[in-house]
């Protein structure tokens, strides 16, 4: 189950996962920075800040702080609140 800030607790199948919450580099950033941004996701053990999309629901994006060890404890919030 995942909590959507708009719809509440819903089955995780309603959502899609985009990846870690990373800031996009400036257009002028070095190519290495871009390679890092596109290919190097840290996938840490434990808490991680991620993007989720309620595609089969309210179609809104939000941020989830999720513990990858148990998938149970997580906190969802809007992008504007981060």
């Amino acid at each position, binding site marked *: 189950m995942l909590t959507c800030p708009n719809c509440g607790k819903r089955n995780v199948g309603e959502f899609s996962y985009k990846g870690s919450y990373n800031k996009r580099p400036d257009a002028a950033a070095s190519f290495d920075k871009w390679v890092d941004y*596109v290919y190097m996701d840290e996938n840490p053990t434990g808490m991680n800040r991620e*993007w989720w999309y309620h595609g089969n629901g309210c*179609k809104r994006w939000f941020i989830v702080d999720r513990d990858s060890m148990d998938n149970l404890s997580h906190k969802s919030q809007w992008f504007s609140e981060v």
Partner: protein
Amino acid sequence: MSKVKRIEKHDFISLPSYSDSFTFTFNGKTITANEGDTVASAMYAAGQQLVSRSFKYHRPRGLKDNFGQGPETLVTIDHAPNLRADTIMAKKGMAVISQNHVGSLENDLMAINDTVIRWLPYGFYYKMFHKPKWVWKIVEPIIRKAAGIGSIDTKGHAVDTRYEKRYRFPEVCVIGAGPAGMAAAKGALDAGKKVLLIEEQANIGGRSQHTFVNVNGCADTELNEISENEAGKLLMFEILGNPNLEVMTLTQVFAVYEDNLVAAYSGTDLFKIRAENIVIATGATDRHLVFENNDKPGIMTGRGVERLIAMHAIKPANEAVVVTTHNGGYHTAKLLHGAGTKVLAVVDGRSSVSNTKEVEEIKALGIKVIENQTIHKAKGSKCVTGVAIGSKDGKQSGESFNCDMLVMAVGYKTQLSLLAMGRHKPAWDKEREVLKITKDTPNMYAVGDINGYASFGHLYNEGFAVGQRAAKGEVAIEDSRKPEDNIMALPADIECGGDNHFICPCMDVTRNEAIGSIAEGFDQVETLKRYSSMGMGPCQGKTCHEAVARLTAKDTGLGINDAAPTTYRPPYNGVKLGLLAGRAPHLGPVKRTAMHAWHEDNGATFLNAGQWKRARDYGDNLQEALNVRNGLGIIDVSTLGKIEISGPDALKFIHFMFPGKFARLAQGKVRYSTMIKEDGIIFEDGTLAHVEDGVYYLSTTTGNQDAIEGLFRWWILTDGYEAYIRNLSGVNAAVNIAGEKSRDLMEHLVDIDMDNEAFPYMSCREAEIEGVEVMLFRIGFTGELSYEIHFPSEVGESMWSHIMAKGGKYHIKPFGLEAQRILRLEKGHLLPGVDTDALSNPFEAGVGFTIKDDKENFIGKAFLKDFKEKGIRNRLVSYKLEKGAQIPDDGVAVLKAGEIVGRVSSSRYAPVFGHGVGLAWVTKELSEAGTKIQIRCANGSDVAGEVLDHCLYDPEGIKLKS
């Protein structure tokens, strides 16, 4: 085979009365069943004790626990193999057949494996047929054929079965509807919670359905001083009246996953249940006793026999011997006696039997009680004809009896599978002599016999209290059992091994084979299991895991805790792949276009495109393609993604999302564009139309529409564009009218100027057809003069019919997706995702013209710059084949001097030219027009292709533009 029959009345209990009877067949033989019968109980009542043949030695097997735990009752029902006959309700007209024999079930020719040569001993696949290597190739098919269970129905009788996925979100989910499960449900219901109660069997009540001892000590005093059977019924009626309770019977929970996801199935429905709290009340089943010929038909467990009598009104046998270690055996003996079976003796493994009420009763009935002894062997070929008992160490023989049934009531093994499932290892509870899970899982509770045997009153109290705690999500309470409820665990496995002492009935592994494996060094439970294959059969250890652990401990000298069973993993029971797959390749709704019915009526075959059903063809895709080239065709393109982009920042947003420049895209104009990901890879293409001032209409492929909408929303959110998205994909239906005559038809349909100058290629117009506002786009995926008409879906069918009627004069014909794929290939148009993959950069794919990289910032800019600097290494090219050459499959290799230098991404026969065409990825050196390429077909033969400059059909685009 003994004569079995239904009984009208029982000396001690009232029997269920069934009015309706019907018939089904077993191996062609007619079996009469009553309402409420399982397939197995009906067969038993009809005298069909022999149900199956065992895995390796083809030994006769029959009903044993009558609870669906072991492999004995595996049968094929109506072409579906490996169903457990004791869990399936009998239905009128079922065709049941037995499995795993050559010749008849009664005279299985393969039974020679048992009697003459045992050529598949333990560990045989590690030892035999190794050298020389070629031997395995010869013997493998023979072994596979000999050692197997049911056969898959290759004729596909079951393919029409429709499987569904369903969802439940109870506050408390109780698994198992025995006394403790019912009480837990009551506890949670009393606390005001929504409760889902799941039961594997047809009726709820669990063991109370066949237990008749008096209840006492129950917190609900109304249930005291009546029999457990009546108390169970009262409890059942009480909870069934509660509207907050949902009961699912004949529903098998096969796994409990992370986050309290309970997976269950019932018939053709798969249930995904998210429960806030789970109460596991799966109870216990009779222990598995290992002695000589312990697998013969006629040897049954105590509870299995009780179920036959109390639930199906069957007299199980003429003469029986009961082996026991606790009062339960006396209860079974009493039920047998009352049903008319002569109980020759109760053999009690306890060294001294105290004169409890149960024992006194049995003695009063004139039944002999023999203390401190156990069963040594069963005799008989296809069914038990006699037993021999003796001392518990197996050394001294005792009495022999001639009987047609042996009952094992030697205590219970706890059903820990769902509780443990990949999380915890069971440990041996010395005090209660059962396996137990000692660690708690949050929001999960265990009640009932799963914690060790207890009386009904005790189970009720425990269940109710835990149900109340589960309702509040409180920590589980420490369970307790009275000392007198403990049943000794090491009762009656006699010490000596033997060739016919079966530990694992699924894989036919005997005690001697286990001892032999241990002697070879496999002296840990984990290695022993893998080497001997004990517990690896259809029941996955449900029958034998406790016996394996217990006997391994005995045979290796390991402590009982070190000999704990191997990890329990899902699924608990076999699950049909159809259930897991569901009816559609996706979980979303199946989408049909507004014109779907017309396509169906006109003989269309359909294929899945994302969630959509698209008409593939109307019987002849080549002719459909030719109709477009030589006349006039129409295709339903309603499934295309259609996204409207508007708002003050619309153009700025488009400039960021797409690689091209659109500032000069005037209103009424359309442009082709690719979509590039941040990694510079092409993932989609489509047309972008400037439909109203500042409003853009994007037309994309069917499969990516939702992903693109999500992507747009993400960028609007993160970068703060004031742009608005409307996904009109399902809102608008669309058709494409293609062919030389399309302009003539359009002039009949709309009253705007259709002249080439007034409405040129790559432009869009608003118009009206029969009073409906429509958008017209002059674009051409097929390479012909063509118009796409977009209109509201609700008029889809009438609009289609109207166009077809008006087009009759021009002999308009529908064409399907397959014809369109041929047409676009003749024209050399790529399809993202078909002709491109996760490595396809747009320059190499030949769509570099859509990229204007002198923009300041847009998606993929950094990588596109890098690609440009690195230069072209491969190219996507059109090619043609010679007339008569074989058409290669999509995806085959392109070779040069024996080396793979590329691959074909799309390949079709082009009817207008009479030879094959396609698109292929080749190295840069091979990409020049006129280069000959060698394509290797899937069947190994090579065809020669010639690389084309651009495409074969109308390379100048004259047809499109005039």
